[in-house]
């Protein structure tokens, strides 16, 4: 099974990705890894006309302790979390309580 036809665009910077998204409007979707979007596209549950590949924007992949909160970049994969470290529910809850 393959997705319906679309136009592939690759962004090399966050600015370029935002620019491509603005021009693409509702017809465009961001492609990160694709392991959720591509199966939906094979089933025709999603039929974007433009895919903007942001997979190479490594600056969006980070886990950072900002003191009052932990920031997780939009491209951080589950696998990227520090080895052996589980999500910190206590800290997450503290953040949510504020």
């Amino acid at each position: 099974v393959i997705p319906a036809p679309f136009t592939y665009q690759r962004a090399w910077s966050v600015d370029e990705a935002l620019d491509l998204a603005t021009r693409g409007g509702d017809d465009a979707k961001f492609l990160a890894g694709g392991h959720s979007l591509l199966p939906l596209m094979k089933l025709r549950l999603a039929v974007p006309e433009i895919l903007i590949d942001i997979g190479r924007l490594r600056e969006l992949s980070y886990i950072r302790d900002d003191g009052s909160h932990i920031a997780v970049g939009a491209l951080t994969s589950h696998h990227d979390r520090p080895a052996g470290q589980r999500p910190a529910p206590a800290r997450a809850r503290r953040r949510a309580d504020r």
Partner: protein
Amino acid sequence: VKVTVTVNGSQVAAEVADRTLLVHFIREQAHLTATNVGCDTSSCGACTVLLDGQSVKSCTVLAAQADGRTVQTVEGLASSPDELHPVQRAFRAEHALQCGFCTPGMVMATVSLLAENADPTEEEVRTALEGNLCRCTGYHNIVRAVLAAASERRPG
């Protein structure tokens, strides 16, 4: 879209449709057919290959996403056609396959695991192979093979 991928050390370049999946590029452009399409929905892991050293399910990656990058398939593991990679040897020795359909993906997922964790526990092996389904073996011999491959690689 023009796509150039280094597959098992050889550069493969082709003009393909934007929607071409990496697994089809590997099978039809690189003519390497060990990588299987199983479920085609990123569930079964039969199509697992290494993309820049990381395991991915190639039925759910666009060929365009792999442009300029490096792919390794099970055909690229052994150093010569007469030899088997240690992981392949362990799979054979431990009877870690029956029909063999899932095996290329299982082997690549194992290579990826051992590259990150040279000495995994049984639980870590089972977690690492979570994304690879086998309908024949019941997994026990696969886990045994992965642990055997790991201990073979350890010095002493």
